[in-house]
């Protein structure tokens, strides 16, 4: 028997209230964990971005193309080891036009040399390179579309209108969390040949790998310097920096999510604080008895804090325990399949789980401070007079 142990037992004197409080706290923690997972998953592209990969785009906007001849110039830059390019295609599944997945025209000879974290069997890669109307899809998208190698699949073009029929030549897997497993890629040359003369030989962006990631900034500057005097200027940055600038476009949403998660925690603190305050009020007379027996105001504070800690630890553990299957087995899988472009890897990180439990404990402790101080400040005689 310990002082904290008695505080813990006190929690269960009103089982219904204790359970409802734990449940209320758990729901708040689940909401918090889900929001933090959204933020974490959103940032994962930055966190796991290859450090040795550079992206070169039009200086004005990402949606403006670059001349294809720039690819060779970038490739010849000292320090660059691999180079490829891509165009955004904007294709849709004609049967499900509302569902989004990335469709890109890429260079089949160099694409997988630059994106080494996308793994594809060598025979499928060779088949695709030889097939001008071939396409490669991610494993998540293949499952969603119900396609396998050898199947025919028609994309509906939005930027480049018309029906585009492809043969699925292969399925890639991801070896890194940042890889979108719902991409659809096909030959850039196929797209280029179908375009009017004035739109040909343009690329959306150029991706290269460097031999020294620590020199990424210098290399980016030297690439851009080459094009400074040309008709189209470029902006080159590391993949991480580019992802960061992409994220900055959504900063208002991310800030709002941060704000909402803080509000949720404040609500949880009020729930816990209210329960603890009610418990203290009911037990004032007992605290008076303890003081009469020789316990100090500090002991009374420990009793109150023991109760608060019990409730908050339970709320944290139950909340994270329930959030885990929700994210890992339900929501995460659905989001990866349907919103893979934004959230290629939507899972609860151990860090988020730990923060959920620790914040619950911290908030429980903070919420109990005022009731604990009030309980310890009551005089013994006043406490003993109080009818519980």
């Amino acid at each position, binding site marked *: *028997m*310990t*002082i904290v142990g*008695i505080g813990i*037992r*006190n929690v*269960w*004197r009103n089982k219904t209230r204790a359970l409802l409080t734990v449940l209320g706290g758990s729901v708040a923690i689940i909401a918090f964990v889900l929001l933090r997972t959204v933020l974490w998953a959103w940032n994962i592209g930055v966190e796991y971005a290859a450090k040795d990969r550079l992206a070169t785009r039009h200086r004005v906007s990402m949606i403006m193309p670059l001349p294809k001849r720039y690819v060779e110039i970038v490739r010849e830059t000292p320090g660059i080891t691999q180079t490829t390019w891509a165009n955004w295609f904007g294709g849709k599944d004609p049967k499900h036009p509302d569902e989004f997945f990335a469709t890109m025209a890429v260079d089949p000879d160099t694409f997988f040399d630059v994106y080494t974290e996308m793994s594809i069997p060598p025979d499928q890669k060779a088949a695709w390179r030889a097939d001008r109307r071939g396409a490669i899809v991610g494993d998540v998208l293949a499952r969603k579309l119900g396609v396998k190698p050898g199947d025919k699949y028609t994309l509906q073009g939005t930027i480049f209108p018309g029906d585009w029929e492809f043969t699925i030549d292969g399925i890639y897997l991801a070896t890194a969390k940042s890889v979108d497993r719902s991409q659809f890629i096909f030959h850039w040359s196929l797209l280029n040949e179908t375009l009017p003369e004035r739109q040909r030989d343009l690329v959306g962006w150029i991706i290269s790998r460097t031999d020294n990631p620590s020199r990424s900034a210098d290399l980016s500057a030297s690439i851009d310097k080459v094009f400074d005097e040309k008709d189209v200027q470029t902006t080159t940055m590391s993949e991480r920096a580019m992802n960061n600038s992409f994220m900055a476009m959504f900063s208002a949403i991310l800030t709002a999510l941060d704000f909402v998660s803080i509000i949720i925690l404040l609500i949880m603190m009020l729930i816990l604080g209210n329960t603890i305050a009610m418990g203290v009020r009911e037990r004032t*007379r*007992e605290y008076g*008895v*303890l*003081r*009469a*027996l*020789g*316990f*100090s*105001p500090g002991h009374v504070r420990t009793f109150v804090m023991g109760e608060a800690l019990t409730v908050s630890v339970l709320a944290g553990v139950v909340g994270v325990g329930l959030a885990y299957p929700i994210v890992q087995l339900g929501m995460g899988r659905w989001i990866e399949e349907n919103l893979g472009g934004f959230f290629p890897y939507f899972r609860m990180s151990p860090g988020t789980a730990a923060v959920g439990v620790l914040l619950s404990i911290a908030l429980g402790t903070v919420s109990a401070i005022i009731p604990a101080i009030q309980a310890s400040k009551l*005089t*013994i*005689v006043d406490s*003993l007079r109080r009818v519980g």
Partner: protein
Amino acid sequence: MDTSTEKADRAASNEKNKSTNGKPIVELRGVTKVFWRGKEELRVLDGINLEIDEGSFEALMGPSGSGKSTLLNLIAGLDRVSSGTARVANRDLTTLGDSDLAKFRAQTVGFIFQAYNLMPVLTARENVELPLLLTKLSGAERKKRALTALRVVGLEDRTEHYPRQLSGGQEQRVAIARAIVNDPTIIVADEPTGDLDRKSADDILNLLERLNRDFKKTILMVTHDPAAAERATVQRRLDKGVLV
């Protein structure tokens, strides 16, 4: 200003409330206790002089509002005097800080309440063990002492029962065991039989008599019940804050 008659009465009262064998365990000198209700002063105790002998069993009687419980609280170190001095078990309570006063209560005083005031989440044995949490005793030693105290009050077969599983008389006996487990110098009891039927009240009074007789505990008991007061060796009366 006191009239000469009041002064004479108080002097006579003081003489009567002095120790008889010269070894007092409680010595109060000119103790007053004042409470404030807004701007109104309530003088609950007024110039109390009292000596209680070590080993005595005293009953303190008086009408409601006469200051009995307040006096008991001052002697037990639960409250502080407004003026005067209070010495209990060779400690001047008026000079002790809050922390030392808490130690004094833990080591010197055993308190028995009218409403038992047991912790409902603890068993009888754990309730008795509660004051021992403030000592450096091991868990095993605490348990052993708690069981001994429960044996003294005749509840060795109810040690693992919760208060809700005990009768009122049994709860009060657990409270007495809790009061004696620290081997206090003085036991103060505030209406210990007030919530009990006659039979249970007699059992509790027998127990208090035994603690006084066999274990030499000094007992100061506040009571409304003349039959209970009869069990004490000394009866005192308090009226309007003055010992009469």
